[in-house]
């Protein structure tokens, strides 16, 4: 894990952290707790913390379930805080998404017979202010989410 500090445009300090971990389902809880603790420096409300945890859980679960299909892989989790905004990035080098637009449609799921609700991206969008999904089939997926805290 590394921890860096940079200057933002407004001159306030931008603090960030990155951690990489195995693609394991138990890291879904680990990731959301880590980001929640990191985000606490922005003095979020309990509701904002719940929102952040839910969105992180969705993104990391996607990497585990879809990106690596439950197989081996590494997930990179980055969080940054500055100017009252939390940015979280979840990156995998798994199978990627051929049609990001379709994947982000509510209720769309690649496993309709399974237990998946197809609401992962909808939840990220509902709980964060901005969600950007970049993906290349065979190369992996990067989800970047932003949320204004205390605004």
């Amino acid at each position: 894990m590394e921890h860096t500090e940079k200057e933002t445009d407004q001159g306030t300090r931008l603090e960030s952290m990155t951690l990489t971990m195995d693609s394991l389902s138990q890291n879904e809880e680990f990731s959301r707790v880590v980001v929640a603790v990191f985000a606490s420096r922005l003095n979020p409300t309990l509701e904002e913390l719940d929102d952040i945890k839910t969105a992180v859980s969705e993104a990391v679960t996607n990497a585990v379930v879809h990106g690596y299909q439950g197989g081996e892989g590494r997930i990179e989790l980055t969080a940054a805080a500055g100017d009252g905004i939390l940015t979280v990035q979840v990156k995998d080098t798994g199978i990627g998404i051929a049609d990001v637009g379709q994947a982000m449609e509510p209720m769309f799921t690649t496993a309709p017979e399974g237990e998946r609700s197809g609401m992962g991206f909808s939840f990220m969008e509902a709980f964060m202010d901005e969600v950007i999904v970049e993906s290349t089939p065979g190369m992996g997926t990067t989800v970047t989410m932003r949320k204004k805290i205390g605004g």
Partner: protein
Amino acid sequence: MEASFIYEAKGQTLIIRLPKELDHHNCRNLRYETDLLMAENYINRIIFDFSRTKFMDSSGVGILLNRYKQMKAGGGRTAYFGAGPQVQRVLKIAGIPALMEQYENAEAAFCE
């Protein structure tokens, strides 16, 4: 480690006490376990108990929706109680309150 799910059958009602963290990791065994219970017992009502649950994400919603569909297909009903603030928000966004009966507490859910 505490058990993920606790199942309790009362007549034709199956009570499922949900875990503290209702995510993909903790939901892995629920489908198999409930299918087994429902095959062995005549169940026409499922009540989800959220009293222990502090966190739920869309994986939890997937679990709930599938049990709801199973019950509905057989003319059964689904209800829940004990949802805290985070769970309430997630349930609302997922549209669950329109599908399942919601009760304040265990007594109200069982009286029905």
